[in-house]
């Protein structure tokens, strides 16, 4: 990244703050960030998307998982400047624009794949990525699903409802592919779209 990338309006500040621009859930966002500002803080505090949660700030728990150009990332370990000009999908961008829940979101409700709800956004994004991979041809047995879900920590549910929800959403996604979902909700973003 060079200084020529800077918008002409960016103020020169001793903190190194500069304006970053991203597409967040299909909407343009431009806001100031210091080089040390992590993506989670940028999304929560500069872009007003508080659905992304931070819990451990060390990359272990996955609560802060978002999609950066279609691939899952720990937004607490990603600097906001690394995502400059990127397409970001947060938990708020998983549902249809008309508010219809994705299959996995609905399955989480049907199977009680949450209790306090704090880790839920990370699991929603992680599961969305897994389903997109399955649509692109990847196959998951239960052991592999459990391994993938071990990326994130839930302290309430004992995972049972989350695993059941993902298995059910995967099965239904593969049986009856929804063209809208397959194309990605905002024209891009989801892996395998």
């Amino acid at each position, binding site marked *: 990244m060079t200084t020529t990338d800077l918008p002409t309006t960016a103020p020169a500040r001793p903190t190194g703050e500069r304006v970053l621009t991203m597409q967040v859930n299909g909407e343009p966002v431009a806001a100031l960030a*210091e080089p*040390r*500002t992590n993506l989670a*803080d940028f999304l*929560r*505090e500069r872009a007003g*998307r*508080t*659905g*992304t*949660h*931070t*819990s*451990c*700030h*060390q990359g*272990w*728990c996955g*609560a802060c998982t978002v999609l950066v150009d279609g691939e899952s990332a720990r937004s607490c370990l990603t600097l906001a400047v690394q995502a400059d000009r990127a397409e970001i999908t*947060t*938990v*708020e961008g*998983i*549902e249809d624009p008309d508010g219809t*829940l994705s299959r996995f*979101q*609905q399955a*989480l*409700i*049907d199977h*009680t794949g*949450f*209790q*306090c*709800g*704090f*880790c*839920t*956004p990370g699991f*929603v994004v992680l599961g969305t990525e897994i389903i997109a991979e399955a649509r692109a041809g990847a196959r998951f047995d239960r*052991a592999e699903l*459990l*391994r993938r*879900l*071990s990326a994130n*920590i*839930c*302290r*309430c*549910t*004992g*995972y*049972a*409802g*989350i*695993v059941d929800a993902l298995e059910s959403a995967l099965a239904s996604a593969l049986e009856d592919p929804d063209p809208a979902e397959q194309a990605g909700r905002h024209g891009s973003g989801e892996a395998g779209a």
Partner: protein
Amino acid sequence: MTVTEQSTGGYVGRSIPSRTGDRFVRGAGRYVDDVHHNREATMVVLRSPHAHARIVSVDTAAARAIDGVYAVVTGAELFDEIGPQQYLWDLPGQKTGHGRPLTVDKVRHVGEPVAVVVARDQYVAEDARDAIEVVYEPLPAVTTVDQALAPDAPLLHEEWGDNVQVRAAWPVAIPGLPEPPDAAAALVGAHTVVRETFTTSRILANSMETRGVVCDYDPTGPRLTIHTSTQSPHQIREGVAAMLGVPENRIRVIAPDVGGAFGMKAVLYPEEVLVPYFALRLRRPVRFTEQRDEAFVASTPSRDQRMELEIGFDADARIVGLRARYLIDLGSAPSTCGAGTGWATGALLCGPYAVPAVDIQATAVVTNKTPLGAYRGFGQPEANFPMERLLDLAAPQLGLDPVELRRRNLVPPDAFPFTTATGQLLDSGDYPQMLGMALDRPAYAEMLRERDQIRAAGRPAGIGVAFFNECTNFGPSGVFPLIGITTGGWDATSATVEPDGRVRVVSSQTPMGQDLETAFAQLAADRFGVPLDHVTVRFGDTDSSHYTAYASGASRAAGIGGSSLILAADKAVDKMRRIAAHLLEADPDDVEHADGEFRVRGAGATGLSYATVAAAAYQGGNLPEGMEPGLETLGAFDPQALAFSYGVVVALVDIDPDTGQVRVPRMVFGHDCGTQLNPRIVDAQIVGGALQGLGAALTEEIVYDESGQPGAVGFADYLMPIAPEIPELDVFHTVTPTPFALNGAKGVGESGVIAAPSAIANAVQDALPAGATPLTSIPVLPERVLAGLAEEPAR
């Protein structure tokens, strides 16, 4: 009032989907850290890096000079500004620390708050915190209970004279009642006596949302609005008011969505006072978000007990007496929770067993570690583990199967209500039936087959059983003073029928993942006889919910909160019946309430809808003589007695003989919590709790080194269960309603964690060579398993 008088909506008892799911899966939950105010500043806390040290000097000049820093304050500067904290558990004779949010002359554990920075944002505040210069003079650290009790031990609180915070003993002689039976004599006369010392390690709740506080400032008065991640908004308001000298009616505390709590957020913390203090001082909103590394030293851990337990049996293997001596490692000073968990261990040590005589002595000791607090189970896992392990150790000596030994000693069904030797009243249940049902489960037969398959494949495998009961619906206000709690034990709900006839219920309970929003909507819809979607349930705001002292803890929401909801609903329905009678020109006794309508019994005519009656109530001009307008009622319920849920856990373990790693492929979990408001929620509590218990059994532990440094300050060092570790869990239920709640509900929140560790440890022992040295501590780590596997089988 009985359950059968309920309206016939039939929502209670059904697995209605969660109302919270829609907002949670969309990322639309609203947690404390999502709350922002204009002009807000951020507070961070400088914490001690030493376990025990004298503070020689604190230099804040460099920190103050940083651009964007609004305040840098030390403990010495705050000592006269903020008063001492109160203690929810205030046991007779307990000693306390300085009780201030910041320490002054000395630090007593790694993580103790020393100074505070308030600045433009988290980043600047942390910069400034790093610029504070503190000179410490390290002191010898006390890191074990044995060191703490040694005659020449360094003292944490010099004015105490020793390191003992409080002692408690059972039985408690009550004037006017017969002398309690003599446990010493019973043990001397016993046919067989077994004795062992057990350790339950220090673990941490680790809710996924850390603690957080956001305080808005309004110059009128001034007034404070505090958003905080807590189980007990009213308790926080009381604490803040007392410590800051602000009247309670100028403080509004809101618990928004709470991202997990597990008891860890049940009581007041220093930051909940510091944030409003700085809001007042700076006349602007202030926020604090606990970071995960500080959560490991600043949020209260729990358990951490060592118990020497001795049980005597007669020739028929029936318990004749029990003696226990145990130590509670309380950390550096009592938290607001005091020694409550340690007290509960002794009071509930007999668990589900008929123990005629006890001699129990508890000693709470201070060490240079983070203060201990509540965590799911609250002293009961610490009681269950020694008891259930010792029964397994006793069984071969008595020539009995462990299941048969338990069967002989469980309180029999015809003995309820049963008073234990420590004075607890067990309300209801059929314990032996529960035990028998577990072994009749097809899943248990599967478990036996799988154990044999694992063994045939050359790996150690074993099965363990543990029984438990859980003290819930805590508790009768009349009893609280006797057990060191100064507040009341009742709870409240207000019910409003809005002008359009819809129902809004405001509970004084606080949801934190247990889905009260759904369960209470079911209860209210049934009681009002209206469709479920005509009811909304609100929580967590001291300005709209009625005062409650204890709020959500001790598995009391369904039974006590739920009963208060029933009282409020019945009052509202009764008022509507009288209004309807007036409008229909009928006798109120002739007006019946059914299907959301009020009609004259037997008249056949269409009745008056909720909306019609509510419109009259709010218009006010045509009401029965003397009736006040409006349709809002309050129900407050204080139970006559506690309610004891109970259950059995059977676990299968599969051990990797090379690494000592233990897997739990299967569990059978039988449970009874009386009336279930929503079976889906009950199951979710059991399943989630059982996995927390698995973590406590096998991987979770906060170890301190000899200098008092914690060995875990993040999820990398503290291994909570992850998805691949989940067992196949067979959950089954019986339903024995408690007579001491209007809806028959007993609590379920803590049941999952109480006996799961005991069952797993018993299963690991079963997998080790016959006669291997007894497992006496949890977690059972791989190195301990390998040592056990290396032992020669006894002949």
